[in-house]
C-alpha cells in the first residue's frame, strides 16, 4: 500500500505538531511509526485514520486524496480498522456485541451473516470463552485482542494501530504483539505506532522516524536500526536502546 503526505500541517493552538510534512511510503505489510513522545506520531495516525483533518496539505492513501467533509471521512473510516491504546471497547456491550456493532450498524450486514463473521474472528483470536463477557471482566490483553478482532471483522482495507500495547504489562504486550505478528501474513497492510523497537525491527517492512513535527527518516527496518543515517535517529535509538 502507498501513503503520501503533501505539505501536511496540523497545529493544536500555537503548537505545530506536524509542520509542512511531505513524505511517501510504499510497503506491503507493516509500516512502523516510531519516535519520541509528542513528536507527532499519534497525530499523523489520527490524520491517516480520518479522525482529524489536516490544517493544510493533502494526504493520499493508495493515490486517492482524503476528502475533508465529515460524511466522506466517515465513509472512509468505516473501511479501515482502527485500534487505539486503550478503551477501544464499549463497556456496556459484551465482547461479541462489540464486534457485531459495526457489522450491523455501519455495514448493514444481516444478523445471521454478522454473527457468523463475528464468531469467526472471535474464534480466530481464541476469545470464544470470553465472547459473552463485558470488557470490564477481560484482561487488558484480551480487550486489545477483541478490539483487533472488531477492526478485522469488517474486512478493512488496512489496519491502523496506535500504540496498541503501551497500556499493557509485558506479558500482555507479548500476547498482543503475537496477534499482530500473525496478521502480517494477511493481505491487510498495517500502519503501527509503537514503542516496541524489537517488534518494529522484526515485523516492519518500513520504519518511519517522526520527530519535531517532521519525518526525517524512513527506511527498511533492518537498515533503520543497524545504520540510522541521521543524528536525530541515532540519538533517539541510543537513548531508548540503552537499557
Amino acid at each position, binding site marked *: 500500500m502507498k501513503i503520501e503526505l503533501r505539505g501536511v500541517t496540523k497545529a493544536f493552538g500555537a503548537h505545530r505538531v506536524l509542520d509542512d510534512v511531505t513524505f511517501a511510503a510504499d510497503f506491503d505489510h507493516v509500516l512502523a511509526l516510531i519516535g519520541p513522545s509528542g513528536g507527532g506520531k499519534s497525530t499523523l495516525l489520527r490524520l491517516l485514520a480520518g479522525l482529524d483533518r489536516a490544517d493544510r496539505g493533502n494526504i493520499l492513501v493508495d493515490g486517492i486524496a482524503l476528502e475533508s467533509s465529515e460524511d466522506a471521512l466517515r465513509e472512509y473510516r468505516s473501511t479501515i480498522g*482502527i485500534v487505539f491504546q486503550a478503551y477501544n471497547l464499549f463497556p456496556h456491550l459484551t465482547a461479541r456485541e462489540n464486534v457485531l456493532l459495526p457489522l450491523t450498524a455501519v455495514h448493514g450486514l444481516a444478523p445471521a451473516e454478522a454473527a457468523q463473521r463475528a464468531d469467526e474472528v472471535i474464534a480466530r483470536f481464541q476469545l470464544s470463552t470470553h465472547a459473552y463477557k463485558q470488557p*470490564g471482566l477481560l484482561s487488558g490483553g484480551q480487550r486489545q485482542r477483541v478490539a483487533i478482532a472488531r477492526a478485522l471483522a469488517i474486512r478493512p482495507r488496512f489496519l491502523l494501530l496506535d500504540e496498541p500495547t503501551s497500556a499493557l504489562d509485558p506479558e500482555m504486550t507479548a500476547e498482543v504483539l503475537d496477534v499482530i505478528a500473525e496478521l502480517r501474513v494477511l493481505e491487510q497492510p498495517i500502519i503501527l505506532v509503537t514503542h516496541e523497537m524489537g517488534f518494529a525491527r522484526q515485523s516492519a517492512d518500513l520504519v518511519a522516524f517522526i520527530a519535531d513535527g517532521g519525518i526525517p527518516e524512513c527506511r527498511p527496518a533492518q537498515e533503520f536500526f543497524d545504520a540510522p543515517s541521521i543524528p536525530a535517529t541515532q540519538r533517539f535509538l541510543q537513548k531508548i536502546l540503552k537499557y
Partner: protein
Amino acid sequence: MEAFFDRADRPAPTWARVVTVCVLLAVFSALCFWIFSSSVRDWEKVWGYRAVLFKGWLTTMGISAAALVLSTVFGVGAALARRSGFLPLKFASVMYVETIRGLPLMFLVLFGFYGVADKLGWNDRLPVGILILSLFSGAYIAEVIRAGIESVGRSQWDSARAIGLTSGQTYRLVIFPQVLRQSLPPLAGQFSSLIKDSSLLYIVGISELTFAAQQVNSATYSTFEAYLPLGIMYLVLTLPVSLWTKILERKLRYEN
C-alpha cells in the same frame, strides 16, 4: 451490642437488622399512639370520602406519568441542545435551564397559570399543570443528562467515530446506554421529586391528591385522618420508583 454495628469488614447479622427495624417501628407506633390516641377517632367520616381521595390519587398518578415522559423529552432535548455547536440552540438551552432552576416551583405554577395561560385564554387546567411541571422538572433532568454525557470519556466518541458510526448512532448505541447507567440514581430522585412536586398544583385548583385531601379535611374537620392517608398515598407512588431504579441499576451494571 457488637452485633448492632454494621461495618464494611464485618456486616451486621440478619437477626440484628430485623430486631432493629421492629424496635424502631414499635417506638414510632408508641409515639404516634401517645400523641394522637386521644384526638383521633374520625376514621369513619374520612372513609366516606375515600372515593375523592382515590380519584385525587389517580389524577396525581396521571399528572406524574405524563410529566415524567414530557420532562424527559424536555431534559434530553435541552441537554443535546446545550452540547450543540449551533449558538442559538445552545444559548436557548442555557437560558431555559438556568432560569427555571433559579425560580421556585410555586412561582412557576402561579405565574404560568395566571400570568401566561390565562392571558392566552388557555383555561384547561390539567394540561397547563402538566406542562409547567414538565418544564420545571425538565430543567433538572437536562443537567443530569448533560453531566451523564460529559462523564462518558473521549475515547468512547473516538471509538464510535473510528468504526464509522454517525453521530445519531453514536448517541443511540454508545453514549445514551452509558449515560442511562450513570444517571439512573439522580434521575430516580428527580422522578420522585416530580411526583411530590405535583402536589403544588393544588394551589390553582387542580383536583389532584393534595387538593382532594384538603377537600376531605374541610368537609370533615378531621385534619389528621385526612392528611395521614395523603402521605401514605404519596409513598405508594414514590417508593416503587426508587425500588424499580435499584432493580434497573443492577440489571444495567457493568464494570468500568
